[in-house]
């Protein structure tokens, strides 16, 4: 396989606060190849959004510390100058955010915002940029695209706004698209449309996509590879099929078990993971999932489990040995795999 387009190695992001150092991202690594999709799954505060903002150089508080390495086509981004990053943002790496209403400028017309995205990176005329904007709006499936160019964001529906955001992100043909919970603020039916749109554009434009979400169902549909994050670390990473069919980390099991089943017995209670995620100010020593893990043993609290290959490129950070993990999952899977993942 060719060299990855995006190579993240041991990325750490911490914030120095009055209460101590918050380790939001703690040694995250992944590679992303051209035209592939990586799903990053985790609950709030697991570091999935912060890691992508750090890669874009968009963490701006003065108390942030970023270390590790992020290479875009071999070019190092961590510690790169603002001018370098500015040339990359919106041109080679683009981002779609969670709330499309808040993410579009409320006082500027859609067309103006799209034209600006083009003109920031290319010395083209307004007319050319506007033609490109129109083309992109059509591509993301906005009806009456020409009319929408003169509309303000509040005149569009939520789904339409997110389509505009996607059009704006992809207008310069970026190599990598970060989609940070792009469907969370939308209706369920619209969510599916937006996911389909991202999947289609990813194929058509050959863009690599990092889909950040707390919803395993979303990545199951879209991602080639899935990384599960917990408390700032990647705890499991594998291909979509492998991870969903043979998950090996107890946290991933918990996530899978908590997906409701449409045809399950109505009186069945939704499974949840006991306890709360640890405070990033004071991570437990050893495995950070230790306090909530039903399979934890005392010695698991002694050191941090490394993300190790459990066979076939399936990476897991867990102290349990592979055979035992397989056995534990098999017994759980017998109880039924959630419908959303079948």
């Amino acid at each position, binding site marked *: 396989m060719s060299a990855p387009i995006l190579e993240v190695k041991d990325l750490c992001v911490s914030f120095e606060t009055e209460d101590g150092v918050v380790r939001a991202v703690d040694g995250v690594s992944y590679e992303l190849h051209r035209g592939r999709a990586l799903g990053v799954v985790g609950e709030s505060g697991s570091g999935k959004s912060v890691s992508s903002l750090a890669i*874009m150089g*968009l963490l*701006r508080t003065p108390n942030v510390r970023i270390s590790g390495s992020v290479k875009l086509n071999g070019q190092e981004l961590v510690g790169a100058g*603002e001018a370098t990053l*500015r*040339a*990359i*943002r*919106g*041109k080679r790496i*683009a*981002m779609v*955010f969670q*709330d499309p209403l*808040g*993410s*579009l*400028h*409320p*006082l*500027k017309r859609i067309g103006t915002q799209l034209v*600006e*995205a083009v003109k*920031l*990176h290319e010395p083209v005329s307004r007319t050319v940029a506007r033609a490109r904007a129109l083309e992109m709006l059509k591509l993301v499936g906005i009806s009456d695209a020409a009319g929408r160019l003169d509309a*303000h964001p*509040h*005149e569009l529906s939520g789904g339409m706004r997110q389509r505009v*955001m996607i059009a*704006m992100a992809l207008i310069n043909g970026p190599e990598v698209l970060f989609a940070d919970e792009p469907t969370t603020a939308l209706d369920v039916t619209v969510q599916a449309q937006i996911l389909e749109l991202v999947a289609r554009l990813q194929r058509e434009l050959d863009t690599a996509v990092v889909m950040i979400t707390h919803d395993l169902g979303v990545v199951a549909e879209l991602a080639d590879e899935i990384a599960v994050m917990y408390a700032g670390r990647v705890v499991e990473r594998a291909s979509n099929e492998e991870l969903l069919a043979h998950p090996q980390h107890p946290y991933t099991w918990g996530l899978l078990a908590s997906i409701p089943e449409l045809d399950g017995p109505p009186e069945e209670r939704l499974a949840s993971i006991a306890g709360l995620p640890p405070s990033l100010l004071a991570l437990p020593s050893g495995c950070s999932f230790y306090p909530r893990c039903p399979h934890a043993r005392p010695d698991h609290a002694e050191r941090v489990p490394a993300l190790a290959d459990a066979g076939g490129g399936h990476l897991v950070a867990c102290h349990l040995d592979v055979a035992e993990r397989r056995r534990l999952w098999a017994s759980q899977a017998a109880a039924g795999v959630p419908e959303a993942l079948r």
Partner: protein
Amino acid sequence: MVLLVSLLTFLIFSVMPSADPAALRAGRAPTPALIAEIRHNLGLDKPLYVQYGRYLERLVTHFDLGYSFRNGTGVREQILRRLPATISLVLGAMVIWLAAGIAIGTVSAVRARTKLDRALMGGALVFISTPVYWLGLVALYLFASDIGVVPIFKGADSYVPLSQSPAGWFGSLLLPWLVLAATYAAIYARYVRSSLREVLAEDYVRTARAKGASERRVVVRHGLHAALTPVVTLLALDVGTLLGGVILVETVFNIPGVGRLGYDAVLHADLPMIEGMVLFGAIFVIVANLLADLAYAFLDPRVRYA
């Protein structure tokens, strides 16, 4: 609204007169007969509702504000004659305070919580708390060409109309502009700072950065664009209020504007003049309000549909 204002002014003045206008006009040794005659001439011997009714009738039919008790000149003509000086003072000061307020507010918002920000906001607080007449006197004492320690500006009583000499007009108003603008610049700086800080934390500002916009572009094109929209409303109201008369600054600098006219009118219990000034002031404020609403709807498309 204007009618209500006129009625209130009339009642306040009639029920609580600062002095008897007739007695003030009667000279040093008034006889009761003379005062009575003056009262009759001014129409003050009629019942209040008749006085007000006549006043209203002339106002509505001819926009006639009556004649000054003090010197018999037409109130409307007097005010209109004085208006250019006040407009000069207010609009000139507005340009200065907007430029200074926006610049300082923006720097403070971008450098929020730094020493520079604290110094600027501390300075702004000083100017907000300073009474404008005191500031005017200090400015005259320091900078006026006649009495100043560093005589670099023209002092009080030097007003030249724009039509007479543009350069003289500019020179004579520079110091009053700065004095009037100081307080407002400080208020606007604080307002712009807080408004811009709020806007800079919005998601769409992050979007602008994610698009690869430069920091200057993010702050000015995306940040200020949204942050200044509410400032327009504030501005219209402030300018409207000031046009009704900048009493203190005009008095300190002896500028023949509406504010001074009002000051003199109050001193001489000149009811028609006060009544006219208040009406003009009310009209300015109402028009300013209307303009503010229109401007806001123009600047913020979301308002048009609300």
